[in-house]
């Protein structure tokens, strides 16, 4: 009985403790201009007394709920309280930033400090735990998962956070942002697409001809091992030599730096995951199934199209997923050789020592890779034939 009453959820408690630890840190950073060093402001100085009371009370409520709550309504209440912490934090940050910027609205910058990041991390950990315990109750689970995120999007949309430095930088460079975002997507998606077009036949070839298997995977493995910056670098010299020798290439925009070496490197990187998964997908097929198909009088082409391809499709797509997520990240480095993409903001931010600009590049890259990852997971699920069951 006592055990049931006091069976604390250690993961949620860890999250809540992280949240409580965040309280004494600096919550906002104020810079007189975007290049100057910042001063950290405590929770009370930054967000104000009222906000402090609300956030502290919310965190203590969370602590109590995480210590005692086992029932479904208690877990849901904890999840909602955690979301409220995040919402309150972000909500009060908006007006606080406006107040702090005060009379220097164009040059001064206010950005979230360690305290806010830690509070969000703590809330994330504890919310994660609540979601796990609410499995089987999709309504409550979704509420707990999305409430905070949705509110942040609403706050962003209504301009409530417009005085935060990241948003200020975004507004200043909106056209550039859209351009580089499109650039990024085109670079990684185009490369993975081309990599799939080459990788799948390579995988099929390796599965059909045992002699080809060794060399194919030896080479793709080595390519995968080479660091991205090194591969970009190694492609610069031959490409610039080529574009000097053949002016027509220059007309097509192919030169040593820029998009051409980036695309070639990204295509090369996506070969291994795609080819290997195609190979594994084809090799693991039960020979009895193939025999059955042959017994039904199918030709080789029919066997391939109607049996082998559909049955190995999930694994092939899984390889494309790995390649895509990897390509989103590697494209960030491609900005260094002038290919553009969201990495442009990261390097811009480094050279100007402006963290907000770094974040302006990094967070969308992170979001992009999460979106691509879950979209491809969905595709894998759709492509899995019913007979194979849930994988």
């Amino acid at each position: 009985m006592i055990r049931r009453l006091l069976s604390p959820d250690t993961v949620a408690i860890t999250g809540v403790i992280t949240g409580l630890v965040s309280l004494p840190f600096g919550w906002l950073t104020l810079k007189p201009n975007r290049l100057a060093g910042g001063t950290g402001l405590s929770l009370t100085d930054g967000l104000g007394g009222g906000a402090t009371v609300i956030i502290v009370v919310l965190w203590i409520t969370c602590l109590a709920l995480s210590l005692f709550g086992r029932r479904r309504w208690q877990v849901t209440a904890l999840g909602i309280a955690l979301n409220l912490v995040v919402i309150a934090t972000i909500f009060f940050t908006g007006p606080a930033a406006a107040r702090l910027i005060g009379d220097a609205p164009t040059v001064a910058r206010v950005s979230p400090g360690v305290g806010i990041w830690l509070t969000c991390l703590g809330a994330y950990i504890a919310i994660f735990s609540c979601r796990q315990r609410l499995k089987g109750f999709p309504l409550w689970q979704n509420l707990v998962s999305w409430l905070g995120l949705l509110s942040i999007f609403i706050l962003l949309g209504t301009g409530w956070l417009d005085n935060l430095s990241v948003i200020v930088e975004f507004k200043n460079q909106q056209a550039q942002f859209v351009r580089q975002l499109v650039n990024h997507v085109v670079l990684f998606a185009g490369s993975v697409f081309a990599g799939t077009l080459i990788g799948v036949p390579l995988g099929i070839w390796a599965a059909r001809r045992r002699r080809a298997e060794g060399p194919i995977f030896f080479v793709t493995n080595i390519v995968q091992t080479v660091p991205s910056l090194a591969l970009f670098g190694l492609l610069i010299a031959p490409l610039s030599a080529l574009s000097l020798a053949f002016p027509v290439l220059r007309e097509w925009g192919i030169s040593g730096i820029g998009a051409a070496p980036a695309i070639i490197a990204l295509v090369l990187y996506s070969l291994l995951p795609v080819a290997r998964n195609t190979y594994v997908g084809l090799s693991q097929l039960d020979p009895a199934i193939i025999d059955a198909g042959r017994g039904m009088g199918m030709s080789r082409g029919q066997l391939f199209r109607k049996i082998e391809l559909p049955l190995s499709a999930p694994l092939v797509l899984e390889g494309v997923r790995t390649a895509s997520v990897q390509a989103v990240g590697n494209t960030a480095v491609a900005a260094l050789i002038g290919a553009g993409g969201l990495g442009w903001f990261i390097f811009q931010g480094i050279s100007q020592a402006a963290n907000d600009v770094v974040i302006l590049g990094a967070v969308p890259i992170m979001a992009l890779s999460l979106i691509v990852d879950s979209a491809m997971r969905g595709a894998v699920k759709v492509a899995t034939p019913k007979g194979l069951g849930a994988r």
Partner: protein
Amino acid sequence: MFKRQGRRWIVLAVLTAVFVILLFQMGWWEAALRTIFSRDDVLYPTASLIALVGEHMKLVALSSGLTVLIGVPLGIWVTRRSGQSFLPIVTDLTSLGQTFPPVAVLALAVPLFGFGLVPTVIALFLYGLLPVVRNTVAGLASVSRETLEVAYGMGMGRLQALMLVELPLAVRVILAGVRISVIINVGTAMIGAVIGAGGLGSPIIAGLVQFNTAYVIEGALPAAVIAILLDRFLGNIEKSLAFSPGERNG
């Protein structure tokens, strides 16, 4: 089978020796790069190649050491009874961390730790953590219940079973994770040059800024070779630990 393994090690040793000798022959590099690029300033002036390689290896060694020291115990802990409830969140956070671009990790570490070595090592450590933790968990999970029951039946305690049964059975999978992590670190350490950590990224960055492709090659070629040699080295260790020699693991 032992013959094949011996050959693998000999080939690797010879290749490594050739590479190291080449690293010291700056004259050869200069001559070769001058012929290719037909210009005089072909060698990165700030540091010799061997010094750059040294810096690079230092970054990789420090961060990979830290990754193994923390990643393996973390992976062990989340598979024990006391840490089991943390398994999902640890898996989730490490894979979430992996989606964050390493360049950005480096950039954001600067205001907290300053420029140079420390932020780079910390960023590399965080970035290499996922494969080590994931493979430690997978390796330990692959040990069957029956095997464990037998170990306990022989009178082993939990710690003994872990040290004498579970870890030896999982060590190959764990090492595969370490290998992935080290290779990731070799690559990410290149980018450390952007925030002044030195290493083989520096000539590449300098070459890109000054439009001197020779510098880029001077950094890129050794980095690629180091990554490949390290990969083979760790791969060989992994294979020599195989319990079933016929089996190969991607």
